[in-house]
Every structure is written in C-alpha cells, then in structure tokens.
C-alpha cells in the first residue's frame, strides 16, 4: 500500500506541474516547454496506472480497487495541503524528478 501511495503521490506531483498555476507556484515566472509537459504528463499517468496495477495485483480486484481509491484521495490531499501551505516542500521532491527530465529537454528551449 505504501508503494502504491508513493507512486500515486509522485504521479500527482508530476501531473500538477503540467498545470501552469502550480508550476508558477514553484518556479515563479518559469514556463514549461511542451516536450517537458508531455513527458511529465506521460510519466504521471504511467505512475497512476502503476499504483493501481500494483494494488490490484497485490490485493485482488475488490479490495485492491477500494484501497486504490483511498490511496488516491490521501495522496491528492497531501499534495493539496503542501501546495496551499508549504509549496516549497513540493519543490524539494519535485526538483529531483524535474532535474532529470530538464537536463535533456529544457536546455533546448
């Protein structure tokens, strides 16, 4: 469940960065290149799918789906609280993800 939670959390973080509003919260004035946005979005959806597949595989369809809904809510709630009250704590985690993808795509911008 923890693995699934972490996957969902990172996936939501990536997806939230594709939204301009949240991106600006972390890097004011910054602009996401289209290719980076595409990568983030794909990775985000892959992460979400991964977290569901993992739980379904571990716990079976009924309980797996139920737990996944709970995991999604909890992950999203944590992220919302971070964005509202302490955006920098998102940045710390997001930077790790971002650093990797930015090295090859953002330079071209």
């Amino acid at each position, binding site marked *: 469940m923890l693995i699934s939670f972490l996957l969902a959390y990172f996936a939501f973080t990536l997806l939230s960065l594709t*939204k301009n*509003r949240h991106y600006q919260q972390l890097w004011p004035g910054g602009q996401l290149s289209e290719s980076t946005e595409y990568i983030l979005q794909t990775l985000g959806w892959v992460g979400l799918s991964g977290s569901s597949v993992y739980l379904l595989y571990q716990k079976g369809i009924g*309980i797996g789906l139920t*737990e996944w809904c*709970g995991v999604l809510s*909890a992950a999203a709630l944590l992220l*919302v*609280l971070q*964005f509202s009250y302490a955006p920098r704590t998102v940045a710390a985690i997001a930077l790790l993800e971002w650093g990797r993808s930015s090295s090859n795509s953002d330079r071209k911008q």
Partner: protein
Amino acid sequence: MKNGFRQSMAWLHTWTGLVVGWVLFFVFVTGNLGRFDTEIDRWMKPELPAETATLAQSIDAAQQRLQEKTTGSALWTIWPATNRDYPNLRIRSEDYRLDAQGEPTNLRGNRAEEILDPETAAPVQTRATGGGQLLYKMHYALHYLPRNVSDWLIGICSMFMLVAIISGVITHKKIFADFFTFRPNKGQRSWLDLHAMLATITLPFFLMITYSGLVFFVLTLFPGIVASNYGSGEQQREVFNEEMAAKEFRIERANSPANLTRLSALADIAEKRWGEGSVRLIEVSDPGDAHARVRVVHQLDDTSRTNQELIFDGASGALLGEQHAESQARGFYDHLLGLHRGLFADWILRWLYFISGWIGAIIIGSGLVLWVVKRAPKQLKQEGGPDIGHRLVESLNVGTIAGLPIAIAAYFWANRLLPIDLAGRGNWEANAMFIVWLAALLYPVFRPIKRAWIEQFWIASAALLLLPVINALTTGRHLLHSLQVQDWIFAGFDLTAITAGLLFAYGAIKLSRREEVVAVNKRDKKVHAQLDSPAQTI
C-alpha cells in the same frame, strides 16, 4: 430551466444540497463514527474483559447458554472473539413470530443478544449503554422514529444527495482542471475551493458511499419493482428474500426434536480446512429440530458481505457441502453493501475510510456555509436585515456543524457520568445527546451569528478535550496508563478526542481573529469614508 444546462445544474446542486444538507451531515458524522463502532463499544463498556478463551471453549459456552435459555428458536448465531468486529463472545437467538393462534409462522420474531464469558457461560454484566452500535445505527435509522419512517427519510435524503453529486460534478466541471488548488483566507473563494477540491479528490468514495447506501433501501424505496414480480405483502416479500438468498441445503422444519451436535467439533473441521482463526460466525437454523442446519462462515476476506461457508447437518454433524457461489446480480449487490460497510478493511484502510468520511462531512458542511457566504453581502445590505430564511440557514449551520459534535461529546459524557443503576440508562445517554443538540440548535437564534460560531466551537473544543479527563477520573484508565499497557482502544479514543478538540479550538481562534480583522477594517473604512466625503458612506 431558463438558462443554460450548467446554470440549471448549479441551481439544482445548490437546492438539493441545501434541503437535506443538515440531515446528511448528521448521517455522515454518526455513520463515520460507526467505522469504529466496536472500539467505541469497548470504550463505553469499560467493564468488558479482554478475551483469551480458545475457539472450542467459546463455542461450547455459547451452545450451553443458548440451549439453557431458548426453545424452538428459528436461528442462533454465535460470534466467537476471532476478529476486530467481535472482541467478545457474542450470541443471538431469533424466534419465530407467532400468529393469532399462537402457532409459529415462517416470519421472524424477537431477537435477543448477549455477550458471554466463555469461562462460565454466563452473560457479562456491563453498564446499560447504546454504545458505538447505537451511534452507528443512528446514521441509517435516526432515533426516536419507527424504521419505516426513517427508511424513507434517509432514502429520500440519499437520493437528493445522489442528484446533488451528479449535478455538482456537472456544475464544477472546471475543478478537474485545477485539481490541487486551495486558496486559504480568501473568503468565499476559499470555501468554494475547499468544497470543490475535497469533493474532487474523494469523488469515487463519495459516489460509492451514496449509491451503496441507497442500495440498502432499494427494496423499500421501489416496492413496485418487487411487487410486480412477487405480489405485495409481507409473505410475498419473504418468498423473494428466500429466492434471492438462494440457500442450498435449505430445508423445512421437521417438527420432531433431535439433539444438536457439538458445534465446536464442526468449527474444528472448518478450521482444519481454512486455517486457524478463520471462523467468523456459526449459524444454526431450527436448533433442536431433526432438520437443524449449521453454517460455519469464513472471515470476510473480500469486499462482498457474504463469504465461504460450510454447511453441516445439525443432528448428525455430517458435512453437507460448501457454499460460496452466488449469481452475478446477487454478487454485485453484496459487494456494494460490503463496500459500504467496509467490515473487510484492515487498520490502514479503515482509517482511510474514516478520513474520507470526515472529508465527506466537511464537503457537506462547507457547502452549507457556502450557501450563506455567497448570499451574505446582499442580505446584510438589505433594509431590516437578512431574510428569515437566511437567518434560519445560518442558525441551522451553527447548530449542526458546531452543535452536533457537542451533542456527541455529551453522549460520551453521559456514558461516564450517569449513575450506573439509573433506570433506562441506555436511553438517557441518547436523550442527553439530543437535548444538548436541541440546545445547540436554539442557541444561535439568540446570539449574533458570528459569536455563536465562535462560542459553540469553544464549547465543542472544551467538551471534547475534557473527555479524556472524565474518563480518567471515572475509570482510572488515563492516557498515559493506556499508552503504557498498549491499550490502543482507550489511547486511540483519548487521542482522537484531543485532536478533534484542538481542531475546534483552532477553528474558534481563527474565527475570532477574522472577526477582529473585519471589525478593524470596518472602523478604518468608516474613518476613511468620513475623511474623504461623508456622502459616500453606505
């Protein structure tokens, strides 16, 4: 409606939500406490011992007690203390209902339940209390009302909620775009953010709990559908129930007595097959009859509310067969009901259910507050003050959102403070709760609304924070002691009460600060306005 689709949906969302919002808030809060019904039970019955008996010992004791106590029962149920839901050995007997001549019919009559001490086979004496079960029961049966009335009331409210959810999703389609947005301290904007954001992240839970909640009432709310196939009337309904349950190995009562086999031996066979600790309950239909049947049921290990079981002949003890298969329609129905109850949930999932439920209550509460906040500027400017309807909604909001927690705290206070030998003690706990709630509903009528919010938040905070103190004084099991002996039920209860109390205190402080800010702003504005041009004051 006269405007576009979205506007008409917004209208529908606002009004369906408002009309039943307070009842739904009550349903969500009490139902959500029901996620920990057993734990609350144990807190409210501090006399209950911790159980250590073996399965065989428990079942033997239960059988002995039931045989001494009952004759000609329709059904016995024995729940050994093998899981979270049944921390103590519990038994139940159900009688056949008698007709006018005193002959048993095939309908069910009275039920009696007891908690047993497996060592002595005697019932455990505890204080008379409704416990967590009563609180949990309130969320679908309310209180003081006959079941057929409350079924319809809750059914209709749930239907409103389903419509409110669907129309809400249509209205706030845009929220899916900024999923993670919550802008605190911005007045109406923040309330809307809170309402929409929480609803988005818990939408699957919210839809599931509403729809599956309705499923509990489906046969009551649409009687025509059953009646069209089976005819109306209680007997016909029973035919449908039998057909739906589709119990194999079912057999009519023989009306000739036969000794019931030793049940613990049957449980032993089941444990050998399934593994230790896997027996959830044992049911005996027509005990003492030659056609008695014993069902040994496995623990819940899936979302369905039904599970594997072994069926034995009650007289000979022979294994008749295994039953799990059910039709897809019936299976889907059972999964929906099982999902709603969430009895299968382990601790983590149980807490997730619990948190989602609170979020649900917050969504409803914030929706109600939003109704007021949105209309307040216009209403306050009105000559002669706000409309009576506006005042009513405001007061009901305070009395429900801040008042219900006080009332629930009062329920727990009553459990600890009412004299143990008071006649009708269990009822008086619930009475205390509803008297306090009534007071909390009336209170805001006589106070300025902003003050009423702050004061009731403080009262709720104090009532909850004092709960651990009262518990310590009356039972001696204070928080440090509970933590030391790792009594997670008492410790968890205390910690939850303290957390809730602190949250209400935080709310009260925040509201008073805001009121001060508003007062200062108003004064400044007045001064400025007077300085600039006296004519511009509103």
